[in-house]
């Protein structure tokens, strides 16, 4: 059963894609989308943006941590490479 639980905000890049096609007007290409697996449970994934790193730094297994980007009352969980990466 799924229940809310606090997590560390740390994880790894399960995989990623660098988006080149301008599907939407509100994001400049290229941008890097990651699928992050959480440290607490590798079966819980978040689709997110990789920030603070260029596409060339993305790799499967990259250690990442959360940074929140505020949009009004919504805080989007984005991920950046960890200091120890």
């Amino acid at each position, binding site marked *: 059963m799924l229940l809310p639980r606090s997590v560390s905000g740390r994880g790894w890049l399960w995989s990623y*894609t660098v*988006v080149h*096609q301008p599907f939407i007007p509100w994001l400049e290409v290229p941008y890097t989308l990651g*699928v992050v697996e959480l440290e607490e449970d590798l079966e819980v*994934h978040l689709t997110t*943006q990789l920030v603070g790193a260029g596409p060339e730094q993305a790799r*499967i297994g990259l250690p990442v941590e959360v940074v929140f980007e505020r*949009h009004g009352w919504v805080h*989007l969980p984005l991920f950046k490479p960890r200091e120890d990466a």
Partner: protein
Amino acid sequence: MSARFEDAAIVSGIGQSQTGRRLQRSDLSLTVDACRAAVADAGLTLQDVDGLVAWPGEHPAPPGFTGPGTLRVKDALGLDLRWHHACVEGPGQGAALMTAMMAVASGLATHVMVYRTVTEATGQYGGGRSGAHPWDAAGVPGQFQWLRPFGSVSAATWLAPSFRRYLHDYGIDREQVGWLAVSNRANAIRRGRAVYPQPLTLEDYAGARDIATPFRLLDCDIPIDGATAIIVSAADRATDTPHPVRFEAVGSAVTVRPWWDQLTDPTAYPAQDVGNHLWSRTSLTPTDVDVAQLYDGFSFLALVWLEALGFCGPGEAPGFLDGGERTSIDGELPLNTSGGQLSEGRLHGYGLFHEACVQLRGQAGSGQVPDAEVAVVGIGGGPLGGAFVLTR
């Protein structure tokens, strides 16, 4: 085995409208053409049709995606219906066909028209896809609230991470995957079905521009306009059908978590459950299949289907495609014989189903698989998946 609903239904007729890029025709007009063609093909009249099922029905979506809902088509064709239905959820786009089978197996209807219409090429004309989604004004619903706000806004971006992980986990030569695009194009040209009639080479594939890495342009299907109609009839009431195609089995199961991104095994989509379910409902096996039509909205999805349906083992699909011989018209598993969505264009699974029927009826001309008796159709990608074994 107890009574199987597959035995109670047949495909009695198939029809297709004009198809192609930017036809600038209405979705209703194309749908009416396809339905009239299917009725004539079945030797029926519109007065005989008492069921109507579509995928996905009308809902807020980018221009050209949904096609007309059943009520508009009922009114346009003047049908007297005992059953009608359209719903975006279910075991893939083929769920509409399964619903029609249930309607005739239950005795509720006798001849059910099933259709899928897309006008995405015309819908994207001018403004392109950019900014055209109604969700961006009204709010993102359901599962997509976890994807779209981050910029994951297309099946290309939902699937690309799994494709990368698949290539990584199995150590696959990425360029082998290009054989699917090359073979499909040759098949489409042979049948006169190619949206773009130039032959493709592996060099073309390798040099195509990036869409969402590792997907390049030639890993992605071609948005087109077109409607396909399939008539599903009660087997015991359609005894004088000129070209019957029989349902041997369906696969409609889902046990895995049905999302785009919650996989640890990059091929653990519902297609795997569908494959197991499909073969559990027939004594036939993958080696009995004469021709396969597998959903290739993206190259990776055809790889998933090849493995999920047991035509090769995990991580073996690119090797299976390599060189193109095994999947050619006279190979061990002729695949996507009218070009698939990569070359015939995106009719959202219904072009593939239509072609399976054409092959079983022996009407594929120079692209005919000799003596085709058993066809498999796998439709859908990501959380959507359903499959059929058809026989003549």
